[in-house]
């Protein structure tokens, strides 16, 4: 019979394939292959570049900071500590001075660079490297995105016999002269020839893919889409000597796959740039005993902007009523098991500008109803929704489509606000449209839910100053999306960046917080929490929750024996 023959043939084929497969060693090579002291981190984002001037993504920060080369860094308590520098210049230690030149008040900061830092080829890190990097930053033909600070600097000089003193002259007093992101260094002896030959091609140079770093580690290999390997910097000295030889990042865009990799032992840790919050909670339920879970509250501020051009929302009482009518504590308990702190102002508790004595809006339906009635929005008999002059109290709430937790918050708010007689229509858009068009051009009718990543050191003046309201005048390039404009607030925000005294500046920031909470141009929701997971036995893993990535203290990481 022909069938028999065909079946036989197929069987033979299958057997043959299986044989070939079994000939090759098919056992997974996770454990036996792993070097004695290495750490593999799963990360869901691929860095855009590891070359200092051009990197923008959080993943890029995380990877490249294993060779930290900034003058200062933030520790896990958001305290600014000197890193490459011996100490932070202040007015007290006389390393920071104010002086007049041509009748203008200027500022000078002097940084002494430690002797322990070496590039991975053995050359010492000097002030020359910083000065050269400043030159790149200053060049308008470079695609440097954030030049706020660079434009405030008048000049940078390398001084001292061994070029270990960096003197920065500022055009005006500037309060954030010591921020960790501002003075960075690239190895001048390698980058300068590339830059001088053709500045516009620097961005495209392969050096950016595996740059040489000057901290405990340096980058050895970057296989796009697959992995990045950092190896110990052989010239790292003293406390910079790492305990772990090799750090590998595996790029795994799918979060379910990240979990599987952790369970199967392919990776040892999941970076804060990795899991979603609710997924981590689920994972913790199943694997509580095998891993360490780190929930770090951070500076990502989730909020709903009210469009203050809208006639209804212009009324402060309506905004306040909406705040009273939203049970943010309840939503937090329900969605985040209470682990994401509710925001009352714009600053989290660890921030110097945090003010606990501002006006808060706890869940209080009576107050909400009272305020709305005061504002003239009355519930007619038999109607669920309030109205005024025949117009119902209805708003459109927008956010990024596909963001699970934001969508769930929206639904909960919708039902809560309905109870105080406010009708909410949800209208979500893909992130590209929402951020690229709707928010940028302030096209949202009433409310928009999104987040800002804030700076731990600075008062975020660009979010609330009048001149940052996006409009056709400034080419829709501002970040004050709610359209908040208050003379007092403007004056406070402008003075903050000029105030050098930390305590006085903190006072200004706190005063602004109080004013902001009273005016309530947007409804603060939560401070997002970063989650990271490591295997038990990894010591000194200290996520910060802010832009300073978890790798800031990578030289302290170690495995317990």
């Amino acid at each position, binding site marked *: 019979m022909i069938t028999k023959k065909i079946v036989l043939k197929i069987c033979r084929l299958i057997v043959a394939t299986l044989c070939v497969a079994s000939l090759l*060693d098919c056992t997974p090579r996770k454990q036996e292959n792993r070097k004695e002291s290495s750490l593999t981190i799963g990360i869901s984002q691929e860095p855009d570049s590891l070359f200092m001037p051009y990197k923008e993504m959080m993943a890029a920060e995380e990877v490249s900071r294993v060779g930290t080369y900034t003058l200062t860094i933030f520790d896990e308590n958001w305290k600014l500590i000197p890193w490459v520098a011996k100490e932070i210049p202040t007015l007290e230690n006389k390393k920071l001075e104010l002086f007049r030149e041509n009748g203008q008040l200027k500022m000078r900061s002097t940084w002494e660079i430690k002797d322990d830092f070496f590039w991975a080829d053995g050359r010492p890190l000097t002030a020359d490297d910083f000065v050269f990097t400043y030159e790149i930053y200053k060049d308008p*033909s470079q695609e440097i995105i954030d030049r*706020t600070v660079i434009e405030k600097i008048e000049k940078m000089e390398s001084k001292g016999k061994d070029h270990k003193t960096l003197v920065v002259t500022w055009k005006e007093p500037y309060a954030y002269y010591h921020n960790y992101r501002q003075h960075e260094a690239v190895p001048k002896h390698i980058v300068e020839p590339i830059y001088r030959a053709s500045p516009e*091609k620097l961005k495209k140079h392969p050096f950016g893919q595996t740059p040489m770093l000057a901290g405990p580690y340096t980058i050895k*290999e970057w296989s796009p889409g697959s992995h990045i390997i950092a190896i110990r910097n052989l010239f790292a000295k003293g406390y910079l000597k790492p305990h772990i030889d090799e750090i590998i990042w595996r790029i*795994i865009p799918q979060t*379910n796959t990240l979990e599987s990799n952790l*369970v199967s032992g392919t990776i040892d840790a999941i970076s804060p740039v990795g899991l979603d919050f609710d997924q981590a909670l689920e994972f913790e339920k199943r694997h509580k005993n095998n891993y360490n879970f780190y929930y770090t509250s951070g500076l990502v501020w989730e909020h709903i902007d009210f469009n203050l051009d809208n006639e209804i929302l212009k009324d402060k009482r309506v905004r306040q009523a909406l705040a009273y009518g939203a049970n943010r504590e309840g939503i937090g308990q329900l969605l985040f098991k209470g682990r994401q702190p509710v925001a009352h102002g714009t600053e989290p508790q660890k921030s110097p500008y945090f003010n606990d004595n501002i006006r808060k809006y706890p869940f209080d339906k009576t107050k909400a109803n009272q305020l709305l009635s005061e504002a003239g929005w009355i519930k007619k008999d038999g109607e669920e929704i309030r109205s005024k002059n025949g117009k119902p109290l209805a708003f459109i709430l927008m956010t990024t489509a596909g963001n699970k937790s934001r969508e769930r918050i929206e639904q909960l708010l919708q039902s809560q606000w309905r109870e105080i007689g406010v009708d909410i229509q949800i209208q979500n858009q893909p992130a590209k449209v929402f951020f690229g068009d709707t928010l940028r051009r302030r096209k949202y009718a009433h409310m928009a839910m999104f987040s800002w990543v804030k700076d731990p050191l600075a008062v975020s003046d660009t979010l609330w100053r009048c001149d940052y309201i996006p409009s056709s005048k400034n080419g829709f390039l501002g970040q004050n999306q709610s359209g908040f404009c208050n003379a007092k607030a403007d004056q406070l925000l402008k003075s903050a960046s000029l105030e050098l005294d930390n305590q006085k500046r903190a006072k200004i920031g706190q005063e602004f917080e109080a004013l902001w909470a009273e005016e309530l141009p947007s409804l603060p929701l939560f401070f997002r929490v970063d989650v990271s997971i490591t295997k038990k036995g990894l010591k000194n893993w200290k996520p910060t929750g802010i832009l300073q990535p978890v790798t800031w203290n990578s030289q302290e990481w170690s495995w317990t024996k």
Partner: protein
Amino acid sequence: MKHLLYRFSQMLVIIAFLSMALFALLSAMPGNPVDMLVMSNPRVKPEDVVRLKKLRGLDKPWHVQYVRWIWGYDDPFRAATTQKIEPVTVHMDKENRALASIDLSDAIFNNNYRMQKDEITKLIKTNRPQIWQKMQANSAIQTASSNEVVDVMLELIATEDQAYYQVLQKNMQQKSLQELTVNGLFGASSKGLTVTQTFYTPGFHQIWFVIKNKVGLETVGSATVTVESTKKNLVKNTFVVNPIPSQVVDDPKLFKVDLASYVDQENSNLKAYHYQLLEGSQGSIDQNGIYTHIFDGAGQTAILFVVTNKQGHQAKAAFSVEKAPIPDPARFNRGFIFVFAGDKNALGFSNTYKRPVWELLAGTPSVTTPTVGLSLWARIKIKVTGMIVSSGRIGNTLQLMIPAILLSLIIALPLGILSAYRQYSWLDYIVNFFAFIGISLPVFWFAIMVMYLFAENLQWLPAGGVQTPSIQDEGLSAVLSDRLTHAILPTLVLSIAYIGRWLRYMRAAMLEILPADYIRTARAKGLSEKVVILKHALRNALIPIVTILALSIPALFGGAVLTETVFSWPGIGRLEYDAIASSDYYVAIVVFLIAAVLVMIGNLLADLLYVIVDPRIRHG
């Protein structure tokens, strides 16, 4: 032959049209990468966004961008720039004169200067013959385009001999300055690169000068001079205009400069000024010191003006205005069309990954390990290992798709024939049952389940990824088996979906043929069942199958986005998805175009295969 030519010309037209349409669509998408920056970083300023857009050419309408992309564009001529010049202090002589002189040779840069290849070759040949020898063997220099070869040479010199590089750099700086002419302004005189001026009052002054490069771009510079005098009765000059940075004309209609903010006056009571432009300068200044002018044309010009205060004191100053850039044909960036001339860099540059597109697709050139003294076999092994490890997105996708498609074919076609031949038998039912499962399983879910079972629970196979990091250190066989173990799960997931579909097609095609008259005739002739099925029935049933298969060729390349994502397999599908999500236009459009070409090739292939499969068709 005619048919082939016709098909090819058709293809070119379609590609030209497609590329234009794609480009228009992509640029019409909301949220270009630069705009998105403002939304993600509160510290990015509006001016920076404008500047970045200009740098990437995103400020132009889409058809101009399209021409830039397909044909290329010239980088502009660059004006000279000045560094901040250290303030000078001079003393007055007995006749109350002070002569200040400033040497600019260390303070100005000619950014436009490029050393010629012959020039640098001559210098190295005579001064550093060892480096020259190394250069001749260096492949990077051999392959560099004439535009870039000098840059590559300089880079090589810097790595070989840092000291000589510095000498060369200095040499170039000196040569480059010869192209510039410096002219003193407002009474300052110049000789070479030195500007001198005599002052008659003590206090602060500024020396102003203008630098002109060889294409006529003017840059204004200034230096602060403090004149000291021992005589107390002289009136000090406190009225100066601070240096004004070069002003860029983004929108000629909106262009204005607030000059008042640069005027420095210690006594603020005297702040009522009179502004006046000096002869030869375009534009107008109002009494608040706002300069306006609608500029046309290209280049960079100096604007000179004078300010008078209430006391009647005058201060003169100048600034440069950057109008539209003047393109420099020597700095031509090749566009996409040059791909056909064999320039792989013409594929473009990915702004997300900061790598050339060809490198993303075809892989990074592998790190060269020293192979001296090894046997031929060992050298081949190292070479192959390198090729596999750095295979790039195309390589990875092919490695996934070819086995998946082959496996599916091997399983699907025979099973399809069988189940058609034995219609309604137990075999047919079972095969169909599984085929339906294969078709209806959502790939995403199935992939996660498979991974959960084999990687997480049983821990037999790795959970995604294309290989273990740094496996190449362990040799070729380790690399091969490692890649294979990583490929098993994704291949399985992909094949199951394909098998189900193709099996159904094959079965349907076969079922249509089997009752046909010629099959009955064949059997009646007394041919064996084997010949009847495999020769008469199968050949006819293959006609529709060939179409389906040929059209799967693009899928071979396009990959499977879902499978690649779940198994974190760095293939083309994922690249394309990420490129669109992050508005990485050049990557997106290149992958689209390759896919389009493959669809057309697949079509052509199907046409050709018909000729083989179907004897009734003969092309002219």
